[in-house]
């Protein structure tokens, strides 16, 4: 199998496993009223390590698996994770490149924005939502748990993706205007 196919395949397997583990195991681990989102952590790691295109594609694929497994509205989780994956990927390719704190910043911001986005999306779809419960009661412990798991998940993803090959990043910047 050519090298160009190995990497997307690795990412796909990683996202698939993370999605299954999230819907079957981690969604049921309630600590302090929140639960860890290992799927989002894996997505953040993939996007930071492999860029925005991988991030967006992985986010869409992950969302599709989650919505299918839960028999939920198809596309809702895909939309949220696609945007999150792309945005984190762009951050990793530009400002966050080679920054040690990038995974932590990305996880904290992505957790909050995905939760906020889900709140808005479900509200638009006519689902009854409680902003107080979601933003004040479950979001803080979720952010905390995600931050605690950021380092191990990031390190594991990095190892599984085998980062022997250098990441293709921008080598020069062209000023516009």
């Amino acid at each position, binding site marked *: 199998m050519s090298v160009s196919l190995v990497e997307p395949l690795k990412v796909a397997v990683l996202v698939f496993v993370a999605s*299954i583990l999230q819907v*079957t195991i981690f969604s049921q681990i309630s600590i302090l009223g929140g639960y860890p989102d290992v799927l989002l952590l894996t997505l953040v790691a993939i996007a930071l390590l492999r860029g925005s295109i991988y991030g967006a594609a992985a986010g869409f694929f992950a969302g599709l698996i989650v919505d299918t*497994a839960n028999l939920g509205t*198809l596309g809702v989780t*895909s939309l949220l994770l*696609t945007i999150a994956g792309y945005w984190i990927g762009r951050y990793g390719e530009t400002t966050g490149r080679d920054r040690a704190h990038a995974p932590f910043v990305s996880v904290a911001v992505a957790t909050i924005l995905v939760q906020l986005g*889900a*709140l808005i999306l479900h509200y638009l779809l006519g*689902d009854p*939502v409680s902003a107080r419960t979601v933003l004040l009661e479950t979001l803080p412990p979720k952010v905390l748990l995600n931050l605690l798991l950021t380092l191990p998940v990031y390190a594991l993803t990095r190892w599984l993706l085998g980062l022997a090959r250098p990441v293709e990043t921008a080598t020069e910047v062209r000023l516009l205007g």
Partner: protein
Amino acid sequence: MLLSLVLITVYFRESASGGLHGVQSAGATVLRPFEIGANRVAAPFRDTYGWFSGLIHAKSENARLRAQVDKLRTEAIQNVNAAQQVNTLRAQLHYVGLPRFPQDYRPVPTDVLTRAPTDFEQQIGIAAGSSSGIRVNDPVVTPDGLVGKISHVAGHSAQVTLLTDANNAVAALDASTQAAGLVSHGEGPSTLALDRVQKSAVLNEGDTVVTQGFKYGSLSSIYPAGIPIGIVSGASNSELDLYWNAQVAPFVHFDSLHSVIVLVPKRRPQP
């Protein structure tokens, strides 16, 4: 992004028998073995955690449960006598009633496979579907009490909307005082509220709340009467309120459901 928006739009607009729903059901069937596998791998770890977690509260819980057993033993003896009387009187009167729980239902015990990834969806996925006779709106329970109802069915899996979902409510009554009301989601996660109870009715803290199982004309509750829901943990009313403002502590631990029982009616009402 565009593809996601198209998926949302098509899925939202089509009926439950639409093409995308069919694809999703097929996808859920394909994912089912992986979910079962993940649950089996996680089971020993989950059990170990549950064992240690249970040890922490074991002593205080033991004392509370001993007191509860004494109280319930007395009630059980009284209930057996009352049940015998009721059965005798029903037979003498040729009483025609609603489907009764559990004798008029076939239990389908099944594993909980998935849980919705966000706090907006109080739903779980189970490992039994239409192939086991399950249909939409079938009640779902555990030995502790009412869990919710079936909201979506695929061939070998189904989605259960929990009682804590904002879209779900059940007609209920106080088993001691017969005060009737509506149990729905509470303020916090995994909490319930008892609403629409007339202020003239009596509601006491610690009373058990069970399903009412009403029938009004052609309308009847999807839940049979007598399924335990929880206990009244707090009740208050003011001059301005029309109804009691009561909280219910559910018997079911909605955060840690590993298996449930779907109640399939032995005789389904004709549409």
